[in-house]
């Protein structure tokens, strides 16, 4: 064969399955195992290390002091629960906005309107993360836009508080919910809406019995983003949260003082996400993903 002479590398790859897989996976595997997994494993290991109470020096060890501190400290527990609550609220609010918006965009809006809304939803992704938080800060600060505008009607804004943190995080992560939900709704054949109405279901029943079950995979995909990104965030709490503390704030405070506690606390959001995924798996929605 002439091709053997002209393309020796391709021929060799064609003949050897191992070489083929090797060349395909080397780069991503180095990245994934070397940096991604290894750094997480190191973090996990740090949680078991020991801090010298006098010198504050961290030495490798295998002890559970950091976890004990987590469980015994009331402030840490309430911070964990608060963070969980914030992340769940952000997820629910995002979903509650994304579903009707998605139905409108996919099934009702004109092509022009659909394009406009798609841009409007993704627009915040174009700006930097800090820029968006600062935008919220400008909006909700004491003499900010919200108060000066709504103050006329006697409504005062939430200021820098937990509510503002939820609003900010929703603002930050909403596109990650809206896009998969919109895509999923687009994929529902219009006929199913017609069939449901034809069989006697009103709009709300159709949403509940037809749209929602078909959206479950998209809602889970979106919620993994909104939920885990909210769990891990601390800058929003720092800049617009007033005195609101989140898990991230505690980790940031301890990262130099007490690395084992920071590392142990970093495992809490991971545990929440794993529990969340296990929960969604039970619903069976992941199999249809």
């Amino acid at each position, binding site marked *: 064969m002439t091709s053997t002479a002209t393309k020796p590398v391709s021929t060799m790859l064609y003949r050897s399955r191992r070489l083929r897989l090797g060349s395909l996976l080397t780069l991503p595997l180095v990245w994934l195992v070397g940096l991604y997994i290894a750094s997480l494993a190191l973090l996990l290991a740090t949680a078991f290390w020991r801090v010298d109470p006098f010198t504050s020096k961290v030495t490798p060890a295998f002890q559970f002091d950091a976890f004990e501190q987590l469980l015994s400290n009331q402030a840490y527990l309430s911070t964990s629960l608060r963070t969980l609550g914030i992340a769940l609220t952000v997820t629910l609010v995002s979903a509650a906005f994304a579903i009707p918006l998605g139905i409108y965009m996919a099934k009702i809006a004109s092509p022009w309107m659909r394009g406009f809304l798609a841009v409007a939803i993704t627009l915040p992704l174009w700006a930097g993360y800090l820029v968006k938080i600062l935008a919220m800060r400008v909006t909700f600060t004491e003499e900010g836009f919200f108060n000066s505008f709504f103050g006329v009607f006697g409504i005062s804004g939430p200021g820098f508080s937990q509510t503002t943190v939820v609003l900010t995080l929703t603002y930050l992560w909403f596109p990650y919910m809206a896009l998969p939900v919109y895509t999923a709704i687009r994929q529902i*054949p219009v*006929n*199913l809406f*017609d*069939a*449901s*109405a*034809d*069989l*006697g*279901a*009103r709009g709300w*029943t159709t949403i509940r*019995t*037809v749209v929602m*079950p*078909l959206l479950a995979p998209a809602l889970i995909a979106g919620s993994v983003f909104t939920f885990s990104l909210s769990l891990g965030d601390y800058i929003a709490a720092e800049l617009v949260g007033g005195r609101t503390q989140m898990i991230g704030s505690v980790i940031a405070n301890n990262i130099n003082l007490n690395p084992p506690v920071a590392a142990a606390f970093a495992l809490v959001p991971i545990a929440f996400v794993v529990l969340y995924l296990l929960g969604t798996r039970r619903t069976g929605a992941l199999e*249809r993903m």
Partner: protein
Amino acid sequence: MADTTPIAVELRGVSKRFGDTTAVAELDLAVRSGEFFSMLGPSGSGKTTVLRMIAGFEEASSGSILLDGDDVTRSAPFDRAVNTVFQDYALFPHMTIAQNVAYGLKVRKTPKAETQQRVAEALEQVRLAHVADRLPHQLSGGQRQRIALARALILRPRVLLLDEPLGALDKQLREQMQIELKQIQREVGITFIFVTHDQEEALTLSDRIAVFNQGRVEQVGTPREVYEFPQTAFVAGFLGVSNLIGPELAQQLTGSSQPFTVRPERVRVLAADATPASHETSVIGTIAETVYTGPATRYIVEGEHGLRVIAERHNDHAPTDTAPWSRGDRVRVAWATEHAALVP
């Protein structure tokens, strides 16, 4: 069917416009109770739009739609006693077959025991009780089709609308389903309004057919009426192969310029010097093409004054016999004068 049969669905001057295009124009139509009524036409002729307006998925731009005499023009689909079998079945992919069939009853909050019993009966009727727990994607096209039918019939609608329900099936399955549909319709006695572009299907199934073209109804009648006595050139051409004898040739043959049609199976081919029977009209031409189709052979005969006639000859002679005529032969085509249908 007697004309005293009550009317199930009536359309009065119904139009539907999408932007600048008129999909349905000033349509009057009456479907009798209990009949199998087909709306036949090419795609874009407005037949599906009419069906969707009867179902309530589209609102008529003007005119009114009556269901058992009640005006439902502005009613929502869920407030109409009609149900639809969709072209691509529109089964809910996340529900089992039993859940799909039960959907309409569940929405109406029918008691559980009654629902269960009626679902079992409905599945029995379409002979698919054994797939109750499967999901739609695990079924074949023909099975899905029957489930869609069961899901709509379980609500005992006044009228069942079928939107090209057999379109996605292969030929053999389609023919089997046609027989089944007809049987089920006779059993339940519900009015069926059936949309199709397949003239053979419409002829096979229907009590009456409305032939659609460009948003208008060209003719309404029994299969025999529309096939044998097409009132327009379009109907003649759309319902099977038909020979249209234009004004010029008509003038030559009959002394009147009134165009007429004659079906290929009614046209005989004779030797050019043979004498036709006294009740026949005949004309001489040349065989331009012969087409062997299995059960029949078609001869396309062309000649003066725009003559172009297709004659179909049943291959009921000995299988080894070859065709008596071939391309280029001078022949005489003849048909009984009374078999010609004048086109008004």
